[in-house]
């Protein structure tokens, strides 16, 4: 009986990006990412980005440090 070659492959976890939720701060994303913001017509693939999660940034979706105020 011939082994099924499909058995050779197990689904492995390959992380494309790292998402770090900074305590009392923004979301930091690094790695291979694609950002889409249809409202502002943004499509970007930065290596590193800080995104607002306090709702107060004047430069959404990006963090502008408003959370510190």
């Amino acid at each position: 009986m011939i082994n099924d070659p499909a058995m050779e492959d197990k689904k492995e976890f390959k992380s494309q990006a790292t998402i770090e939720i900074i305590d009392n701060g923004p979301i930091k994303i690094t790695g291979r990412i694609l950002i889409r913001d249809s409202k502002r017509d943004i499509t970007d693939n930065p290596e590193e980005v800080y995104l607002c999660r306090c709702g107060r940034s004047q430069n959404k979706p990006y963090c502008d440090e408003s959370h510190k105020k």
Partner: protein
Amino acid sequence: MDKAGSFSGGRRYTNGEITVYWKPDACVHASHCYRELIDVFDPGRRPWVDMYGASTGQIIETVNMCPTEALAWKWNEEEKNKTIDADQTNHINFRRPELMGSGDDTPEEKPATVKVMPDGPLVISGSFTMHYSGNKKEVNDSIISLCRCGSSNHMPFCDGAHRKVEFNDK
């Protein structure tokens, strides 16, 4: 140069001249490959494809016999992929057009996608590692939704609070 490795949904093998893509999910075990060319396609061997077991011409001929998209091939020299006769049934142009234009050095893997929802959360899809409040979470080919309005009671995740607080994404 001998570049082999994984790509989304399978593996690929090269002899420097052509690359053979293997997609195990698509195999219906018609068995043409190993009956025709056991020196290259040997299911009892690991790795099961030896690209140096026969000539490039023989490999192409055998891959073209595969009735599914489980085996597909392309020339490594991209120019040559632009003019392919229709009888080359398993060239990626015909079987796996999504693989066209993918270079040899970059595995065919999608980046993680971050969608900014209007007046709503961040929806992140793909495979990525998350760090939050001292936790580490590996998300494998899945989707999460992160709060962007600052009002979620389930931080850092979205709980729908943006609607109640009428989060206006200016």
